């Protein structure tokens, strides 16, 4: 198994890792220590005091609230969406591209979907305006709850780390 140091993993998270090391990460068996180093690197980049439990996106995390130890979904601007078991999109702002004009803002003529068939739903952080996700469903499609991680099993059984405390 290959191993990497904290600096390399921090560069990976920042998108600044050299290609040779990135390629080695791709082609060699995975390093088990990656998760803890990755979370440690991300923790240094955020300004909130809460502990990152699981990264969900480039600016989105499940964190352990510093206030009450509850696990919540949080934007790196500090905006708190909801409890970690809920669908954060239901607590976001949404902008739906459902007209030809709205699609023309992002794609050249003829290169966007026909909005009678498909729309784009852009989910923004209500506080900082970061776009956390773009759904591309048909009209009527329910808001998709993408990911319900089994964090306890992952920490305890898969990576052998103590599960962060969680208040009910």
């Amino acid at each position, binding site marked *: 198994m290959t191993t990497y140091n904290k600096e390399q993993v921090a560069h990976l*998270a920042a998108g600044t890792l050299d290609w040779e090391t990135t390629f080695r990460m791709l082609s060699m068996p995975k390093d088990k220590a990656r998760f803890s180093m990755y979370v440690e690197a991300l923790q240094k980049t955020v300004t909130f005091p809460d502990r990152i439990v699981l990264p969900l996106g480039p600016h989105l995390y499940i964190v352990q609230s510093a206030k009450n130890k509850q696990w919540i979904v949080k934007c790196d601007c500090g905006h708190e969406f909801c409890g970690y078991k809920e669908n954060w999109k239901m607590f976001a702002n949404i902008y739906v591209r459902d007209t030809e004009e709205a699609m023309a803002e992002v794609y050249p003529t003829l290169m966007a979907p026909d909005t009678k068939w498909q729309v784009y739903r*852009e989910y923004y952080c209500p506080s900082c305006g970061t776009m956390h996700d773009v759904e591309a469903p048909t009209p009527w499609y329910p808001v998709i709850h993408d990911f319900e991680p089994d964090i306890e099993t992952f920490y305890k059984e898969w990576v052998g780390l103590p599960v962060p405390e969680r208040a009910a």
Partner: protein
Amino acid sequence: MNMLSNTETGFADLLKNGQTLSQFRAGIIERTNATGCYNGLETLELRERDPIGYEKLFSKLRGGLVHARETAKKIAASPIVEQEGELCFTLYNAVGDCVLTSTGIIIHVGTMGAAIKYMIENNWEANPGIAPGDMFTNNDCAIGNVHPCDIATIVPIFHDGRLIGWVGGVTHVIDTGAVTPGSMSTGQTSRFGDGYMITCRKTGVNDTPLRDWLHESQRSVRTPKYWILDEKTRIAGCHMIRELVEEVIAADGIEAYEKFAYEVIEEGRRGLMMRIKDMTIPGVYRKVAFVDVPYKHEDIGVSSAFAKLDSIMHSPCKMTIKENGKWRLDFEGASRWGWHTFNAHQVAFTSGIWVMMCQTLVPTQRINDGAYYATEFHLPKGSWCNPDDRRTGHAYAWHFLVSGWSALWRGLSQAYFSRGYLEEVNAGNANTSNWLQGGGINQDGEIHAVNSFEASSCGTGACAVKDGLNHAAAIWNPEGDMGDIEIWEMAEPLLYLGRNVKANSGGYGKYRGGCGFETLRMVWNSQDWTMFFMGNGYMNSDWGLMGGYPSATGYRFEAHKTGLERRIANGEAIPLGADLDPAKKIYEQSIDATSVVKRDKQCMTTEDCYDNHDLYLNYLRGGPGFGDPLDRDVASIAKDLNEKFLLPEFAAKVYGAVVSQDAKGAYTVDAAKTAARRAEFRKERIARSVPTREWMKEERARIINKHASTPVQHMFATSFALSEKFKNEFKTFWDLPADWDVLETELGVPSYGSKFRMDLSLMPDVRTIVQVEE
């Protein structure tokens, strides 16, 4: 005492153990179900006792499979096989479970295995008999093949008169004699137009193809020259591998070989579960994909009125990764099969995903049926991925397989991202289209058909640490290659007037999807030529990831009565290069004003007439993007602008870039001004958006009022009709009244197949193989 002989009872005793192949297979399934381990192999005795010998066996067999493929490939003349590597050889044990496979289109690990299992369960050993030197041919999509153009040759392997395994070889042929030319045509609406269909037929004895087979098969397709060379390719590869197995047995003994042929499958099962635990996170992942089937359009000329409707294929994927590393792929809610050629057999789906997984979760040489045994599949009977009617067409099953699987990429990539394996993240794969196909009399004066495999090189999805690769890959072919212009010009009466990267085709994001490319082709020196388009235009099957945008959808450009013959003779301007900005219609400026041009989103058409000097734009799609586009670094934006991968208008509109151009036309992006503009951009986003729950009230009203296009309603109607569970979840989410429903009968479109269907399993004397939860 008078007793009937084995010959008289029809019992061939091929295994020399008193069991039929079916009985032997039933024992393996029983032991697998009882223990959870393939064939009850809770310990890998050979591997543990002699690990070096085990690895040597692996290396000899795997190396031989790859060698056979590379050697046999040189026999083929079809560029699909010779240039794009659309062939694969696979070794099976006696019950048709895959031991090892070569490189190539490894989707056929399962498809040829399904054919072997069909022969086993339908007593082929009694009639037509299975003997040393036999050859069987299969391309039947109702028993597991992906589409009819994948022709499989299957050869049994005997040792001391005992059946010990099988070898199968598959090539993607250029034409199957379907209603319209090309290997994956659109003009037919059912199996009965899908072309020449062969059901595990004995086509050779004593290592020699039968003459009736050679005569019949060559005259059943448009391209007999390519057909026969493909046949020789498959036979040569199969016989090389059979000899390899004989050599291995001579060197290592039959006992070791047979132990290996079962243990390696159990090792494959354990390997996938281990990789899942090493790379992902347990939990539930939900993703969905769609693709458009716009068949109402006047340029869809099908023979059946009931196929003339616009519809949408729906593939919701619930991926559950369990504590023990096993995973379940559940497609409850998938839409019904349709009267087109985009349906897929359950095995095409279950076997097919490994062609994708070998590029991410299982990037090893140990691809075999072990992965299947580590996976639970739920494919609803009656859906597009598990049809319940023996009439379904499958010629272009890939139209939605590649789209449906994009959901798996996104689910796995969520896991990789959360776990920190950012290098593995892939926002998805391009909808690998357009497929340029057609036929007629070619430049050599022969009846011909074409299927341009330029689609082997589309843009890949963005990664979490870098852009996707431009015009580089196809999800269904791990060795994707766009092919050489010179070879395509020899194979097709179509000259290249341009081959360029397609601007804005990759989905935007912090890291953008790889761009596709476009080739402008001019018909040349043909007679009675036809072509058609096959791709996505009204919808996009590839979503972006974590704030990235989907890639661009497709459009078509074709031009007739162009005046190009005269223009070329006179040295006048002609269209060359890229259709850089489709709005500017640049090609139309260099053809006659009286030309007949089709420039629109109807990317699915049927066979249409083309004269020499007519034009066809083949635009290959890009991959989806990753992350918020406002996070993209300004140097990458400038680079994209200067390489014409991005139109300047969208650098500002999507990336919030403040761009300037110098006297020589070079673009630069001002970092400070861009940062300021992006801050404004984020405020504008907040201003134009509403809380999701507020928007949901409006959407709910639209649902109650049935305010949506017919194809959208039709998609939901077919999904609801197959799955009460999906319908109930939908109604619960939107808090709809108890009596709310959408039925096909209320939509005013043809609904053939909605009520009355007949599965292949209902035919007399047929035992179908079910390998999924239905």
